[in-house]
């Protein structure tokens, strides 16, 4: 069991859980965040109020707590809905919690980005007979993406490391796996997990730099 290659392969395997959680969270929380951003900017006051309250609750409580509530609440409250049993249930619950949590953070970044685009850009589209939708997709969106790339990058990097929180509902991600060794007195696997995160974040940083360069052909 203390064989180094075996430990490394088990750490790598468990890091795949972190990676999957990361990818699924990004995939769904980015579009959901945009929807929430629109809700929080809605001219319909009750909707705006509702959405902003929701964002306050999600941003105002620890993600760790949200994981616990989302996983255990259906059972404790005898809801008709329940998570599938075993590993997959825990993973799906964690993914849902992460998506909701990150969507709320993203929504605020999106809102800031959208509101930072000068009114003149909308007006230029309007006087050219564009619909609101056309203005958003053909004029506004790319400018927003360019502006919010740095803060979104921050969130994305935070997300990589936050995936380790999924162990609170017994998802056997990399730190939980390493913890099993350290509780038996073997400490280096825990230190080694840092290398996984560093490597992942390093690759992401390169990707984000590349994206930023891709969008540097215009200025807002």
């Amino acid at each position, binding site marked *: 069991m203390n064989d180094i290659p075996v430990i490394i392969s088990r750490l790598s395997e468990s890091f795949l859980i972190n990676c999957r959680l990361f990818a699924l969270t990004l995939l769904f929380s980015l579009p959901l965040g945009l929807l929430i951003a629109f809700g929080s900017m809605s001219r319909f006051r009750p909707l705006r109020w509702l959405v902003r309250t929701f964002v306050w609750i999600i941003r105002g409580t620890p993600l760790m707590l949200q994981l616990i509530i989302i996983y255990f609440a259906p059972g404790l409250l005898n809801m008709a809905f329940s998570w599938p049993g075993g590993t997959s249930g825990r993973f799906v619950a964690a993914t849902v919690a992460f998506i909701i949590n990150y969507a709320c953070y993203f929504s605020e970044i999106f809102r800031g980005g959208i509101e930072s685009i000068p009114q003149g850009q909308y007006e230029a589209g309007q006087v050219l007979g564009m619909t609101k939708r056309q203005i958003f997709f053909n004029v506004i969106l790319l400018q927003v993406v360019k502006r919010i790339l740095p803060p979104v990058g921050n969130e994305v990097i935070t997300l990589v490391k936050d995936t380790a929180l999924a162990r609170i509902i017994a998802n056997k991600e990399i730190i939980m796996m390493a913890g099993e060794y350290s509780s038996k007195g073997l400490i280096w696997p825990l230190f080694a997990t840092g290398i996984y995160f560093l490597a992942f974040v390093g690759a992401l940083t390169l990707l984000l730099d590349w994206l930023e360069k891709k969008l540097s*052909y215009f200025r807002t």
Partner: protein
Amino acid sequence: MPILEVKDIEKKFGTLQVLRKIDFSLEKGETLAIIGSSGSGKTTLLRCLNFLERPDKGRIVVNNEVIFDAMDPDTQRESEVRKKRLHFGLVFQNFNLFPQHTVLKNVTLAMELLAKERPNYKQDKKAILEEIQEKGKNLLSQVGLSDKLDCYPHMISGGQQQRVAIARALALEPDILCFDEPTSALDPELTGEVLKVIRNLAERNTTMIIVTHEMDFARDVADRVIFMDDGVIVEQGTPEEVFGNPREERTRQFLTRYKENSGNGSQC
């Protein structure tokens, strides 16, 4: 028959009355200059014509068709407004070009989006898009920018950007082209090239409304001049009348002040 009739337009922002009893008309091919000090309501008037502001009172008639009537909500529906605003084009003080699109794309984008609504768009897509590209290039050569088609807005000067904006506004062939202080955001040495383009349009009998602080230019190019102060039209007439022989005391004061200021060169 006038191409544009503006009847009794009023506009308030909160309790501030910005426009009062605005009445004027414009013949096809005419150039109208609107002058007046800052805060006199000139820009708000242009914005009302372009549906960027909604007047509280009054009517706007283009080619005998009522396109806006404050009393008739039917004329203010979003879907209606979108088509009707195409009667007007607007060139903004600070250009408002789309920074992520090339110069050519800035001019063609709206045409391309509108073309999608044509019934034959799907079958003739390629031909239609080619035609739009051609038209965009022609417009840009008209404003002297044939060599900048693939540039992005930040790569060209302010004067060039404003010329792109003019080409963009011309692309949809508005009945009336409006300019909101088109040279105010430009360095003095760049105003000339923009004014030249506008002068050119005037010579080709483009119907235009120009809000401007360039008095000499207004006097030279306009067929008619409106002087506004404090939200009302104080005086209107030919440039000779308004500049040469103003009837109203307020007009005289404004013109005197303007001459004094420009005589001293740029002060700040």
